[in-house]
């Protein structure tokens, strides 16, 4: 069972590094949207990796760790998405480096509003 141990420890190490990168990403990125990108997702992967690592190390725990991972995989992107949407609706726009890239979502919202007014 040596091999499983190695896999488990490897997963835990990778997870810890990703959690660290998640924190760093949240800290370093320039605006909210990029922070969500870097932060919550890296930390989600990190968390999933650590949890699975523990599951591999302790085979009896595996099923439950899997359940946690699945919940995380459904719930965490949802919350990131909801947060991004809420922030956008609160008129906080993403920064763009390239002026040519237009905010497609804003345009679509404007269209919808115009439709409503008509």
């Amino acid at each position, binding site marked *: 069972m040596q091999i499983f141990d190695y896999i488990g420890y490897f997963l835990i190490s990778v997870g810890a*590094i*990703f959690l660290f*990168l998640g924190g*760093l*990403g949240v800290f*370093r*990125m*320039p*605006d909210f*949207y*990029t922070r*969500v*990108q*870097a932060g919550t*997702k*890296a930390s*989600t*992967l990190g968390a999933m990796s650590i949890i699975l690592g523990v599951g591999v190390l302790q085979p*009896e725990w595996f*099923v*439950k760790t*899997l*359940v946690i991972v699945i919940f995380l*995989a*459904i719930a*965490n*992107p*949802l919350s*990131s*998405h909801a947060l*991004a*949407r809420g922030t*956008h609706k609160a008129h906080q726009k*993403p*920064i*763009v*480096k*390239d002026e*040519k*890239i*237009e*905010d*497609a*979502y*804003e345009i*679509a919202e404007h269209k*919808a509003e115009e439709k409503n007014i008509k």
Partner: protein
Amino acid sequence: MKKESSKISKFFYTWIFLFVLWMAFTTSLDIAELIAGVFISFIISLFTYKFFTTTGFSILTPKKIFYFIKYLFVFIIELIKANFDVARIVINPKLPINPGIVEVESKLTSDFAKMILANSITLTPGTLTVDIIDNKLFVHWLYVKGTDTETTYNEIAKTFEDILIKIYE
């Protein structure tokens, strides 16, 4: 879109799903636990089956299960690949990014499939679903490679959607 499955199929699907989840929670084959699980999941599915699933058992054909497993693999590979991508960006002192919100058109019709697609897009770093209006996904992209629908579809959604269509449509 296909027509919805019958109530009975939906109900039993919910019931069995919840029961399996219960077994995962308890991780025990004790007879009392199993009976409690059957009972509790029965009660919960009584008032939730109407919205828990639209497909019922029709989703459980061998082909679809096979594609689902394939999807999981593709997803995990994408996840790892793109995470290292983000790691590269975060560690790089210059932060090489070119962010923007782009539009992606999806061919999926089922709400649940759209959720899976959007979650997958969100979880693969570099992209974040901001909203869905009808079949248009608005995605925040860390390094925009083009704003026309074809590029965005190919770059962001194609890998996932090819498989999802086979499962849900």
